[in-house]
């Protein structure tokens, strides 16, 4: 297994995802002799994991069971240990497409943060591309290097510990795309331009505040970037639910034993798409929005160097 290549069976040293159910999962480092505690009991790596197929059901000591999943950047994003606020797959998806990333692309990124976007970028540019990621926090940079090693992708990424606003990305004229998620991106636009290939490339800056966006757009214009475009994207999730609504009792018309038009006790009632399992209710399937959703992550500004 690796984050850039699917494998069929769980091996010693793999990072696997333990799925316990609705919204409940966590990553685990597979190791001979190790034991992992879950609310359904214990998982013994040597007997329960190693050699099993990814996607298998594993019964834990208390009788409950879990599924063991192959890692993907998307699952990693949902389960990685946060050292900073991270980017989620919704933003990552549009970034990937708008920067026109694909196998072989050379990308520059700053800041590395918790490595959420980094893993996704590495997956997209593999096997022939490369990610140059810059992080000014020494421990975070080191932790990122460690994780990339553990996940078998260190050959696809170079982590540099420096301040991108002062010293740039450490490379010049080779990148197809540059991504910025830093407090003052306008200070790095010049460095971004020199990191990009002479023939052209794409740039993206992510900022939570509109004031940052305004400064960044001005800087992009000053440095000759074109096609400057700012957008925001949000995910709307729906829960699939079977809903039952009661039919109100509107009484009967005078001297009339027949019921009102909406007679749910008549199974052949026209237009009634749902089974009436109980008198006085109508059932239907609905995609119900969540009560609380993410209202804002950040503004994404894209531009082209030509």
């Amino acid at each position, binding site marked *: 297994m690796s984050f*850039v290549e*699917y494998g*069929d069976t769980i091996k010693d040293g793999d990072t696997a995802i333990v*799925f*316990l*159910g*609705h919204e409940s999962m966590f990553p685990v480092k597979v190791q001979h002799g190790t034991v992992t505690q879950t609310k359904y009991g214990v998982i013994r790596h040597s007997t329960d994991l190693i050699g099993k*197929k*990814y*996607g298998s*059901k594993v019964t834990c000591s208390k009788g409950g*069971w879990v*599924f*063991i*999943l*192959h890692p*993907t*950047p*998307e699952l990693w994003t949902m389960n990685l240990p946060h050292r900073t606020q991270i980017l989620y*797959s919704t933003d990552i*998806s549009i970034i*990937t*497409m*708008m920067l*026109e990333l*694909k*196998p072989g692309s*050379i990308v520059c990124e700053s800041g590395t943060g918790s490595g959420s976007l980094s893993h*996704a970028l590495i997956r*997209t540019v*593999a*096997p*022939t591309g490369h990610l140059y990621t810059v992080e000014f926090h020494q421990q975070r940079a080191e932790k990122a290097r460690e994780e990339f090693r553990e996940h078998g992708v260190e050959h696809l990424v170079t982590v540099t510990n420096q301040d991108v606003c002062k010293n740039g990305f450490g490379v010049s004229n080779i990148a*197809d795309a540059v991504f910025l998620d830093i407090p003052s991106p306008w200070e790095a636009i010049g460095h971004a331009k020199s990191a990009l*290939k002479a*023939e*052209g490339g794409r740039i993206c800056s992510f900022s939570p505040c*509109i004031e940052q*966006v*305004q400064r960044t*757009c*001005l800087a992009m214009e000053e440095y000759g970037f074109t096609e*400057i475009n*700012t*957008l925001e*994207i*949000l995910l*709307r*999730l*729906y*829960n*699939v*639910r*079977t*809903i039952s609504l009661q039919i109100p009792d509107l009484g009967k018309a005078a001297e009339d034993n027949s019921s009102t038009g909406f007679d749910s006790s008549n199974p052949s009632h026209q237009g009634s798409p749902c089974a009436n399992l*109980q008198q006085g209710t109508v059932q239907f*399937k609905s*995609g119900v929005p969540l009560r609380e959703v993410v209202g804002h992550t950040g503004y994404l500004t894209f531009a*082209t160097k*030509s």
Partner: protein
Amino acid sequence: AMEGGRSARIREGDCAVLKRDEVFKAVSVLRRRKIIFEKQWFYLDNAIGHIYGTTFEVTSGGNLQPKQEVEETTTETKEAGTDNRNIVDDGKSQKLTHDDIKALKDKGIKGQEIVQQLIENSTTFRDKTEFAQDKYIKKKKKKYEAVITIVKPSTRILSTMYYAREPGKINHLRYDTLAQMLTLGNIHAGNKMIVMETCAGLVLGAVMERMGGYGSIIQMYPGGGPVRAATSCFGFPKPFFDNLHEFPLSKVQSLLSGTFTTETLPADPEENALVEEESNGLTEEKQTSLLETEEEPTTEAAMEINPAEEQDTMDINAEDVEFKENKGKESKENVREKQIKQWERRKKLLEAAALLREKNADGLIVASKFHPTPLLLSLLEFVAPSRPFVVYCQYKEPLLECYTKLRERGGVINLKLSESWLRNYQVLPDRSHPKLTMSGGGGYLLSGITVVLDKGKSDSSNSEALKMEEPSSKRCRLQDLPC
């Protein structure tokens, strides 16, 4: 071989995309071929050899000329008003008439100069606020300074173009929704993907771009053959198509039940489909000749010069060309050629069937006009466990049913029904705000991950799966309030 770089130059035969502000159009780069785009006629000849991304101006002779970098001279403090309380919009403030402007254009006066003339001849210009003057100048520039950028096709460019111009052809799949599909589906180099789409080949092209020529794709198709009109726009190198297979939906049931055979295949539709496939990027010769038989689209509504938009149209064109070539030449050679083609076709079909039978695909992408449930229930059988799948539907309701049926089937977890919300912004000093128009909807996605299917204990795994997937408060009885 894959192109990670942007250093590509415009070559004859390429599919290029013309861009002017937010308007795109895909065209074939051919010499002495008149192009019409945004009310302008020109030839692409002079563009050949330039780097993609170059911006051109249209000269009076209909030729393209790279646009020179022009110094913005309007930096001196302009006279401007404070608000519009005294500005009356009576349509009489511009002193130049239509004829005057036409005369300027005919004289060959550059757009920049025309805009300057319009400003000087506007009685209200100096009363407008600075912002209003800015807006006025931008509007006039857009109309009179016609610059065209020639960009290299990519998923970003083509998905934006199709959504703006011909959303019906792609089931109104908005480009950000497509972006979600590619990431949720973990599309990357080396995958063995199953793709089923009726989006003119746009989704297939997007998947191919993200796979970079590595791995393999089996495209499932309805009817006689897959439509790959948009796919050919991407300009993938030939080797990308070596591992692209196709398989008819009409044979899926037989494959799943073990009764699949190539003996009962109708010859004619497949022959035409084969020809269509060839012309969709495999045989350059054929593609060029087909393009020549198709006349230049007379309206800007036409998407591209490639005539293979609809399967039917393509069949007719292919037949025409083939029959013209074979008129009166019913020689043994031709018959034998047809037999070889048919044999090759059968061979490819068997290869695709063998690939599917392995039931170890790394993912499934569905984006079609058909009801998603039967597609999902059957095609998921070919996917390995612990792999993502994503289904797109223009409407939400069929996905509700799909979700329910998948729950009953089992073997899937982490089911998510989602919709992506997208908003564009205008960012200018003191004038930043979301743009005035917005897309009302870009379709819906149902995604999930496969797991090992427990066929033996379907009942118990059912209730267990329900227990696993929905929080216990949701398992309400019917007497309870709606849950």
